[in-house]
């Protein structure tokens, strides 16, 4: 088709340009429908079992999304009248945070005590300004010894404290709800700091994390994308020495990106931190097509071919390879549809669309632009010699290159299994992100952000009051506290023990569980009637009082450690409380499982992509043998990349599990270009393998390392993202692409020279072509 298309385009470039601009404008206008969903739940598909377990718990009890003010007086003293008053004011002001349903702090902690036959329930610090030294000291002792508060709302040394607000996100407008909360919370933070300059205040909690997803991505688009454009412009400009060519390429890129995002908007995609990196990736990948077209074009023009004919020639020569490489790249990205995590499916689909659009624009708009714009060609500076020297080097040293490169590859790949599986959502953000700093500070001083919610179901109405059940609950709580990772356990058994003590004139020897169901039930009834709005027990008990939720907080751990701990808890429960039904869930657990789930589903995806791509390659190269040989340089880069990753970072997770599929489609391109040139030399020129390797190097070597350079630069820019998921993805992809080039240059040629010893067996068609040429 392109034989007719290109001449037509060159005849009517203005029509093509105007039509394209019109089309792009209409489609791209859809981008205004794109919204950013800042909610960690978007990482999980509807069928994700951990998400469903967590949602079920949230429906039974109340939701537990939160915002935490971490309050750290510079002199380390929380319990002074002024500080407590400031905290009390902040506690009260926190009720004004949008969607807040509960505010917990050391000042409004509902302290219960006995006075004769009177049960008194009141705020621990009701009127801080009236408290004298003795009262302050007393409040301090109560706070740091209360299991509900210690290591959750107050540090054991009483030098850092938390004001924790629970919010119920309605989820009606997920785009605005979280930023709305964040802006209110920041307003309160700056007010607090203005009034209390000697106190540091940090913001953490799930809501702040959600907000950071959006903010990190926004920051990326504001800083990284312009840098990428600059790098692309510089790379093409310097390497190909053309201003108009560079401008045209940038136009193709912009059109590809805006059209993709427009399609995304029209078809109802929403943006998430991972899928928001689609423009960056499209930018990087779209360059390759133009580089190949420009390289050939200039090569022809240098040889004296007129511009129009050179454009025709370039498109004729490149049409099939860039179509093929675009398709394989798209297939690689489409393999992300196997991912368990919707944002990565979206990312894959968006980039696949973008890559195909880039191809489309490269063969239509690009020649139209080139035909109108002036193109100057400087005389060749014999830079191709460098490639020839390199080819000679490879040919001469093939005997040791093959075993040495193989050995190095195998050696690095050996470390692949040493990578640790880890999706710590706190570490999704680098240490420049305020949320990360706040959460690290919280971890060092009070508690980590890793929680597990354990719902224990007694199986019968009012069953939580049963002494046998309560005893198991207490044992579980105690056992959890004995685990080295545990910071805090919020459990109903503590409340009941405290009430029992209160009911016996605060006699410490009565700090134990009530011994009858009636007693426990009546204590709770009494206590519940004394609690204020928002501080009730409904977040711990279901309506039927048949099940209770215990929340354990742990130090931050790797995914494997969390899964191991979850298994340990389940094992304990199986041994000690088999009669009760149990559900363990939390955002942390959702993240710790998703890496594993995703790796499993992505293995399938990669396999599919590999089969499809290999089939395409076999057809394109017209040879099963070379199709099979191409498998090696296509597969090994990712494996070597992951092996090398062990030395760089050593932790893999959700983001990296998609890298293999994604890079597969990209690294194939190099192999396609190299092998097709090699085969052309063997088949059309009857060259021996050595000469064919030299030919391949001289014809595509340059284009390959330029495209690789641009790709590596592009993904290295992505690696600068403050959002670690994207940064790691960028870094490993850049690394893999670089390794792929090394393999294509140093391993593939010796391999070809080793295996391809027999005279070439071309397909009938090729032989006939050859004969016809020879005859002519």
């Amino acid at each position, binding site marked *: 088709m392109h034989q007719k298309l290109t001449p037509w385009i060159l005849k009517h470039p203005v029509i093509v340009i105007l039509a394209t601009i019109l089309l792009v404008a209409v489609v791209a206008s859809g981008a205004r429908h794109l919204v950013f969903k800042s909610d960690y739940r978007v990482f999980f598909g509807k069928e994700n079992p951990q998400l469903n377990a967590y949602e079920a718990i949230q429906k039974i009890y109340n939701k537990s999304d939160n915002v935490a003010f971490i309050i750290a007086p510079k002199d380390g003293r929380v319990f002074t009248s002024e500080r407590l008053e400031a905290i009390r004011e902040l506690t009260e002001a926190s009720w004004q945070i949008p969607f807040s349903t509960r505010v917990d702090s050391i000042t409004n902690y509902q302290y219960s005590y006995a006075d004769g036959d009177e049960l008194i329930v009141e705020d621990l610090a009701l009127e801080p300004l009236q408290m004298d030294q003795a009262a302050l000291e007393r409040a301090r002792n109560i706070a740091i010894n209360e299991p509900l508060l210690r290591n959750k709302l107050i540090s054991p040394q009483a030098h850092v404290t938390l004001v924790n607000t629970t919010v119920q996100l309605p989820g009606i407008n997920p785009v605005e709800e979280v930023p709305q909360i964040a802006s209110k919370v920041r307003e309160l933070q700056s007010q607090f700091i203005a009034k209390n300059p000697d106190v540091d205040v940090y913001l953490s909690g799930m809501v702040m994390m959600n907000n950071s997803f959006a903010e990190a991505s926004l920051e990326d688009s504001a800083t990284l994308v312009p840098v990428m454009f600059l790098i692309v412009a510089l790379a093409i400009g310097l390497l190909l020495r053309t201003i108009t060519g560079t401008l045209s390429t940038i136009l193709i890129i912009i059109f590809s990106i805006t059209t993709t995002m427009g399609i995304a908007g029209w078809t109802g995609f929403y943006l998430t931190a991972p899928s928001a990196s689609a423009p960056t990736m499209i930018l990087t990948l779209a360059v390759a097509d133009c580089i190949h077209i420009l390289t050939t074009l200039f090569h022809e023009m240098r040889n004296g071919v007129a511009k129009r004919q050179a454009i025709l020639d370039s498109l004729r020569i490149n049409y099939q390879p860039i179509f093929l490489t675009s398709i394989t790249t798209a297939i690689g990205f489409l393999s992300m549809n196997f991912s368990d995590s919707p944002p990565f499916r979206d990312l894959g689909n968006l980039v696949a669309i973008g890559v195909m659009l880039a191809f489309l624009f490269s063969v239509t708009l690009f020649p139209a632009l080139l035909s109108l714009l002036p193109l100057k060609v400087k005389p060749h500076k014999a830079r191709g010699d460098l490639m020839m020297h390199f080819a000679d080097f490879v040919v001469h040293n093939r005997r040791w290159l093959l075993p040495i490169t193989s050995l190095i590859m195998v050696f690095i790949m050996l470390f692949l299994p040493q990578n640790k599986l880890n999706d710590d959502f706190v570490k999704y953000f680098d240490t420049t992100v305020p949320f990360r700093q706040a959460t690290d500070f919280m971890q060092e001083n009070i508690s980590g952000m890793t929680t597990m919610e354990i719902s224990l179901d007694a199986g019968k109405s009012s069953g939580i009051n049963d002494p046998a059940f309560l005893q198991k609950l207490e044992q579980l709580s105690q056992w959890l506290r004995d685990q080295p990772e545990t910071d805090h356990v919020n459990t109903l058994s503590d409340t009941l023990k405290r009430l029992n003590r209160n009911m016996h004139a605060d006699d410490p020897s009565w700090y134990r569980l009530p011994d009858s169901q009636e007693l426990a039930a009546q204590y709770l009834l009494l206590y519940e009637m004394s*609690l204020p709005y*928002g501080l009730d027990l409904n977040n711990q008990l279901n309506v039927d009082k048949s099940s209770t939720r215990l929340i354990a907080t742990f130090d931050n751990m790797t995914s494997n450690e969390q899964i191991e701990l979850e298994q340990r808890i389940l094992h304990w429960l199986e041994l000690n409380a088999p009669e009760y039904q149990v559900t363990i869930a939390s955002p942390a657990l959702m993240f710790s499982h998703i890496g594993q789930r995703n790796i499993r589903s992505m293995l399938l995806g990669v396999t599919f992509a590999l089969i499809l791509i290999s089939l395409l390659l076999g057809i394109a190269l017209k040879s099963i043998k070379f199709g099979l040989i191409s498998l090696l340089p296509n597969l090994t880069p990712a494996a070597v990349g992951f092996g090398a990753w062990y030395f760089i970072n050593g932790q893999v997770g959700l983001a990296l599990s998609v890298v293999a599929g994604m890079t597969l489609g990209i690294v194939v391109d190099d192999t396609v270009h190299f092998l097709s040139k090699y085969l052309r030399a063997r088949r059309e020129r009857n060259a021996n393998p050595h000469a064919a390797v030299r030919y391949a190097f001289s014809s595509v070597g340059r284009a390959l390392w330029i495209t690789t350079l641009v790709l590596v630069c592009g993904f290295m820019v992505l690696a600068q993202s403050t959002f670690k998921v994207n940064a790691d993805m960028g870094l490993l992809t850049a690394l893999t692409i670089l390794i792929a080039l090394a393999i294509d240059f140093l391993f593939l040629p010796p391999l070809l020279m080793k295996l391809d010893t027999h005279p070439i067996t071309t397909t009938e068609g090729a032989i006939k072509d050859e004969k016809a040429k020879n005859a002519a």
Partner: protein
Amino acid sequence: MRRQRMPLRIFLILTLLGVQPLLHAESAEEKGQAIAAESIARDTGWGDMKADMQMILRNRQGEESLREIRMQSLEQENDGDKSLTVFDKPLDVKGTAFLSFSHALGADDQWLYLPALKRVKRISSRNKSGPFMGSEFAYEDLSSFEIEKYTYKYIKDEVIDGLDCFVVEQYPVDKNSGYTRRLVWIDKAEYRVQRAEFYDRKDSPLKTLTYTGYQQYLNKYWRPDRMDMVNHQTGKSTELRWMNYQFGSGLDEADFNKNSLKRAR
């Protein structure tokens, strides 16, 4: 009947339109207060009352739970009413009895008898805003209505479920209240609360309460058979079913003291 009522309604409307200029001097606050006063006036003089109540709690997961209690109240002239509540279900709180002397302003006096402990405990708490028995009703939603507990503002007239209503905003005086305001629909014919919307401390819609099945007792006092509270933020709801209203059973002060608590079961 119907033929008679139509002209009557028109007559009423015309009269209201006619007196509109006269009412003009009345501010929205005064009108709101007047409506509340009228509704209290119409519900004065009932003396003592007994009723049984069922409470059905539901959550978003579809779980349900039943509570059953008996209540008796004694009207007080210049103060909040006295009430005694006996719990029957769940069984583990059976026999627990709650005595409350409510006050228009300040903390109520509250005692609870715990049969398992065989002791009467006085509860000292400023909190009236917490959930009653884990339900969506706060204690403050169920305690007796006194004019001093709120300030008022008349908003508008509105017809709901075929009843012509005043819509009045009520702002709690108690700073420990869980609400910034309640928006209350009171029917013009009998001054009964038909619906109430509760707004939380940040003035977001929190709950809606609807009253249904009003019946008249002693030819004067209206009581609902059913009250439905829906929490819009948590998706939980509570249904109250009232049964066996009895007036004039001859209860007196002696039935509402600490000693009567233990006998209450």
